[in-house]
Every structure is written in structure tokens, then in C-alpha cells.
């Protein structure tokens, strides 16, 4: 039987998901002591590769991997067309609109919003019928309103600590973010029994970890 190839987002997602994969019976010893490796085949059923979030979808759309594990922020931003089959209970956070205390959301002028997620920001402001100018920046988004690059930011918060330390406050809560298991459409047909097995095991492990894998609305 051919191995299933899984692209896992490296960094925080990787750290949160590995215990879940282990609980579902996948050998992740290699990832735990990875040194400089990027491909892990300790488990005979799977080949796991570590890549950056947006690249998970590139590998997946191309069919180079059958399964991707990636945040819904990236799926939403890139308008994913593959099957997002499972919400994992890890990596839950939320998009927010945040700024300094003197920011006035009601002000009648075209606001400047800095973000790493221009599409999500555009859709949010279109949804509330407001026209804004969006500036895309690559990191440390909290700086933008402090330095005067933008009036406010749209970014992901998990605990809110970074915002507080930079004296920013939340003005609106946007969509929630969580980690998802995404499956290539054709691969689901070609590897049906293996993928079903993997998903069933993961669902069980996710429930046993004491949390429901459903988003509470």
C-alpha cells in the first residue's frame, strides 16, 4: 500500500498537532528530534513533510501530498478549493480589528488598515459596507498603528497578550481560526480507506484529549 503524504505546517501548528498525531497512533519521533530534516518517514504508513503554511496548499493543490494540516486563516486567505474535512481542537484563535485607544471606528474617513491577510480584511470591510485602504505587511503587525503606518490592524489573537503589551485594544471580533485537516479532492477517491482510517483515529484522539472538535458558535 502506498504511503499517505502529509504536509504539516511547521512552527506552532506543528507543536500543537504532533501530540494529537501521536495520540492517534502515528509515530512522530522523527519530528520530535528533527535536527535539520524536513521529511519524516518513521511511521511506515505516512510520510510527513514540514512546510510553511501557505505552501501546504500549494503542495496539496498540486497533488504532491494527499493531506495538509494548516490553519483556517490560510485556507480563508487563499480561498482553498480542497476538502477541509476536520476541525482539530488545537490552535483555536480569532481574527480581530485592533488599534490604539484613540482610534474611532465611527470616524467618517477612509481608514488605513494594516494586515498580513488582505483578502480576509477586504471581505470583512466589504461585509460591513465600509471602504478602507489596505496595506499588506509581513510581520509585527502591532507596530503599524503605533508608528503611524495605519489607523488599525486586522490580525490573529490567541491570548491577547501581545496586543496588551503594545497598548492596543480590540474593536471588533472577526471570524474564528482553528487548525484544519485538508484533503486533496482526487486523493480522497484514490486513498479512501486509508484516509478514512486516519480521520477516524484523529477524531477519536481529538475527542479523548478532552475537548470537542466542534467550534462553539
Amino acid at each position, binding site marked *: 500500500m502506498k504511503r499517505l503524504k502529509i504536509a504539516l505546517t511547521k512552527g506552532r501548528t506543528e507543536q500543537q498537532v504532533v501530540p494529537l498525531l501521536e495520540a492517534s497512533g502515528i509515530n512522530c519521533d522523527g519530528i520530535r528530534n528533527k535536527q535539520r530534516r524536513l521529511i519524516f518517514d518513521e511511521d511506515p504508513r505516512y510520510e510527513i513533510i514540514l512546510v510553511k503554511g501557505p505552501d501546504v496548499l500549494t503542495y496539496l*493543490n498540486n*497533488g504532491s501530498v494527499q493531506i495538509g494540516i494548516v490553519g483556517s486563516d490560510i485556507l480563508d486567505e487563499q480561498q482553498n478549493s480542497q476538502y477541509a474535512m476536520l476541525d482539530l481542537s488545537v490552535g483555536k484563535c480569532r481574527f480581530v480589528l485592533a488599534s490604539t485607544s484613540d482610534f474611532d471606528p465611527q470616524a467618517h474617513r477612509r481608514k488605513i488598515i494594516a494586515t498580513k491577510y488582505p483578502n480576509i480584511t477586504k471581505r470583512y470591510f466589504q461585509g460591513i459596507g465600509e471602504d478602507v485602504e489596505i496595506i499588506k505587511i509581513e510581520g509585527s503587525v502591532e507596530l503599524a498603528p503605533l508608528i503611524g503606518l495605519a489607523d488599525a490592524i486586522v490580525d490573529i489573537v490567541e491570548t491577547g497578550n501581545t496586543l496588551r503589551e503594545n497598548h492596543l485594544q480590540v474593536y471588533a471580533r472577526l471570524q474564528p481560526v482553528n487548525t484544519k485537516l485538508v484533503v486533496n479532492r482526487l486523493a480522497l477517491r484514490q486513498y*479512501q480507506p486509508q484516509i478514512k482510517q486516519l480521520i477516524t483515529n484523529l477524531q477519536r484522539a481529538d475527542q479523548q484529549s478532552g475537548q470537542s472538535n466542534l467550534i462553539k458558535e
Partner: protein
Amino acid sequence: MKNKNLPSGTRDELGVQAEVKESIENKLFKNFRNRGFRKLTTPVLEYSDVFQPLNADNYRPYQLLDDQGEPLVLRPDLTLPVARVMATTGVDLPVKWYYGGDVFRVKKQLSGSYNQLTQAGIEIVGYRGLKADWECLDVALSGCREMAIKNVTVELSHAKFVAVVVDQLGLPEATGDSLKQALFNKDLSKFDSLIAPLKQSDFGDFLQEWPWLFGDFDQVMEVVDRLPEIPALQPIISDLQSTAQFINEMYPDDTVTVDLSIPSPQQYYTGMAFRGFTEQSADYLFSGGRYDDLLTNFQKVKTSAVGVAFDVDSLVERTALPADTPQSLIFFNDDQWEAAVETLAKTPNSTLCLTNDREAAKRLAASNGSQLIDLTKQVK
């Protein structure tokens, strides 16, 4: 120099590749004609209204305006122009058409997909029964066989299955629609939460397996059997079963699968739909189905129709390209034209060498690695 580059999503086809495509099209057309189909050629430009019934997401057309300011599109599909012809001309029914040509769809930049696709297909209009569906399948599978494409998998589905089952669940309309969306997107987390209240009902066993309801025909039917009796489902299941049996008998080397968890490929499908593919590649070889209500959009009289189209580009991809062997060059004097053409006709894979002198002809032959047939030596 930017305007000398190709627009994203387009391509040139040179030499062998273009020739293989042409020969595949010719084989398909010959098959269609041998079965008594007549050719129907429609223009590349149409009014955008013709394509109203298409799902706009997957079939975004290229738009332009005519001199009156009316919106025109480059056709994104070849079935709807046939429907237009049927609605606007008094063609006697039943009728069998075949067509071939390029369709144009706007694709995402840098996604690696092409915007211009070649199709060849048939439409059978005015036959209500399963025999018409089967002729489409027979045309499709015999075509694959002739192209030496082995181990084709035919995936059957039905436009009405999902709607009929969801109707039986007694859910509010909005919940039913969410359930369909979750099913179609294979969003298991959402699907599970929506069916949670129905776990204990007669449908519980079936619902749990529904997102996985694709693949081996018999295994899928076993799950369908867990459903309580639904009269509206009987004709759907029996059509699928007899069609699977038809394919198994006629094409024992091919595989039949079924998918009862997908949306219909187009909103206008009303009956069975089918797609053919092979394990190696993501592209479908052919796809088709029945749409008995489509023509009412135009002339208010329902006319049964079923059709299937080959994706010619994906047939080309699966065809081994013949090696590009160098052509023999025939060099001749100006007054030897007749003899040269005679030699050309006798010599396979040859071409006239149009250089003015023998030295140039020799250099050309040497650089191409081809044989030089020198007619000038035969002159006294």
C-alpha cells in the same frame, strides 16, 4: 516586449503534439459519424445569456461587448449552444448531434491550469429512456478503448439523490441546505454537528456514512440499503444499478464506481451523470449526463436530452507521442518539379528541400540528421 509573451493560462502546440491532437479528434469524429451522429458547429462568440444556467464559479467566461454594447462571451461550454440551436430552429426530434471545438474559461492566475480547452462530444435530444444514456457511455468507453486507454474508471452519480434524501429528513429548509453544503464540501466537523439530532432516527446509520458514500459500487449500495424505504429513491437506484450492470457486461475491463455525496456537475442536470478517469491523472477523460429540463428555459417545452464530452487535451496527455524522426529531404532542379512530387508521394516521411543549390541542401540534411534524396544527379 511583454505583449510578445503568451497570456497566462494559454499555450502553443507545436509539431507532434498538435498532430496527435488532430488525429485524436479525427478518430473521435469518425466514430461519431459511423454511429449516425450529425455535426453541429456553433460560433465561438455567443451572447452571455446563452450560458446563464452554468455555475458561474467554475465557468467564468471571457467577456467583451459587440458594437451595440451587448455583452458577448467566448463560449465556456459546448452543450448550451446546442440547447440554443434546438430552441431557435425547428429541427425534428429525436436528433443526434456531435460537435468539437475549444471552450474558454477564466482560470486563477499562476494556478497551472489552462484557459482554452478542447472538447469533442455528442448530444442526444428527444429520447427519454436509459438507452440514450447508455449510448453516451458506449460512445465514451469505446472511444477510450480505441485510444488504447486501459482501466478506465466510470464514476456514476445522480443529480436528484441528495435532494430526495435530504427532503425525507424533515429538517427546516435552511438546515437542509447547510447539511447539503457540509456534505458537498466534505466538512465532517460541520456535518457531524448537523446530523447529531438525527443519530437515533431511522436515518442515523446512513447519515454517519454519507460523506464517505463513494467508491466501489456494491459497497455504496450496501450503505444505501440502510435507508428506510423512500419511494422517490427507487427509480434512481434502479437506473444506477442497471447502468452499472450494462458497463460491466459491455466493458468488463473497466471499473464502475458511484458517488452519491457530490453535487451535480451543473445545476441543469436532472438525471444520471457520469465521468471517466484513470488512476494516474487528476483530469477527467470524459463527462456527461442527462438534463431533461434545460430546453424549457428557451422554448417552454421540455425536451429530453443527454450528452457526453471528451476532454481532448487529457486524451492527448495519455497518448504516447511518436518519436520525431527526421524527414528525408528531396533536392531537385527547377524543371524537375513533377519528378520531385512523385518521389514525395512514394517516400514516407519526406519533404521537398527548397534550397537553391546542392551544397545548401547537404548542409541542411547534415544539420537535421536526415537523408538527402538528390534528384539532380539523375539528370544527364
